[in-house]
């Protein structure tokens, strides 16, 4: 069971872009209530998708470079990366069932 761990501007390339599996990045900040609300849901997903998807989180307060690069203007934002490219995006706090649907769509090989 892999709990989402923190990535930074410094290791984003190695941890996310060069990862062998798809990666879900949870962009968050400590002062953002909905980000803190979505955190336990993302944690549950990380257990359910263990082995299929890697889950990480990025603090947008401390890692402005990455947040700017991907045009983040609202958090929470969840970005899914496959082979170094963003392939799916969910902006705002959505119910878990929505997140799962979205994640399953993105994970389909031909999507």
């Amino acid at each position, binding site marked *: 069971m892999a709990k989402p761990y923190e990535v930074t501007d410094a290791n984003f390339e190695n941890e996310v872009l060069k990862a062998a599996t798809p990666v879900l990045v949870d962009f968050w*900040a400590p*002062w*953002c*209530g*909905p*980000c*803190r*609300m*979505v955190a*336990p*849901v993302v944690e549950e997903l990380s257990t359910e998708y263990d082995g299929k998807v890697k889950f990480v989180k990025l603090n*947008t*307060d401390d890692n402005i470079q990455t*947040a700017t690069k991907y*045009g*983040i*203007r*609202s*958090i*929470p*934002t969840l970005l899914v990366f496959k082979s170094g490219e963003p392939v799916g995006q969910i*902006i*705002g*706090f*959505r*119910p*878990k*069932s929505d997140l799962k649907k979205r994640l399953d769509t993105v994970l389909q090989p031909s999507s």
Partner: protein
Amino acid sequence: MTEARKEYEIIIVGGGPAGLAAGLYAARARRTTLLIERKGAGGQIALTAAVENYPGFDNINGFDLAQAMHQQAEKYGMETAYGDVSAIAQEDGRHVLRTTDGDEYVAKAVILSSGADYVRLDVPGEERLTGYGVSYCATCDAAFFKDQVVAVVGGGDAAMDEGLFVARYASKLYMIHRRDQLRASAILQERAFAQPKMEFVWNTVVEEVLGGDAVTGVRVRNVVTGEVSTLDVGAVFVFIGLTPNTAYLRGTLRMDEGGHIYVNEWMETEVPGLFAAGDIRVNSARQVVSAAGDGATAAIRADHYITDHFGKHPATVSAGAERL
């Protein structure tokens, strides 16, 4: 993933202050209690940086307050399930709740506290640019507009409160309001008028949010003169009111035109054992403290209702238990 029906004495739908207070009181009455929450406990207050009007707390972060309420209720035995309740029906004097995931729950009493959601402007560009400069949550998004000119729409407490938070980051704020005076409480008006970054744009409505990949401006119209103009802004924060989350109850319960549920002073709807508390009921004061009060009232009444209709506490919960 349909499973067997799960039974509780009291089920609460929605985990804002009303639902969390109801959960606390229900659990302390030693009723088996479940809170069903759509997203995460907290509701609207979780969006708020600082709550200054919950008695006993001079200034507390909204999410922290919600989390404290949630933990307090769980400490006394309230359980939490995540799901979106899509239908409620009555069966043999009990209430059956169904979620969009296909889960089913049964309860002797149900407290509806699904709260309210922000109203959208409903203008071109708004939906397309949501998350790209259109925002309904200052604490989520204000920091991304540091040293930029932004717009805040609305004239109530939320608009002033959130606007004052945005002012920590933005260089200038156009405060756009459709009337010539604010509805916000006096103390928030004082602070807003004292904030030099805020420029009030009165008698004005937003007609379009402009921008390609991100917000670049808003087209506005003065409702008195009819004059149309464009304001160059990098973001639009919208706080123009709330609409109750009662769509799933349409046809089940009597509501006013705005979708608020009619209740009596005990938070009872016209369906026995079905209660409504907080922002979803008619004539709510829409405050954290009044929502919590509603929740407590509903839970106390629900406890009495169960004793009256299902026998003395502790009631047996086994399937097929005799009903009175």
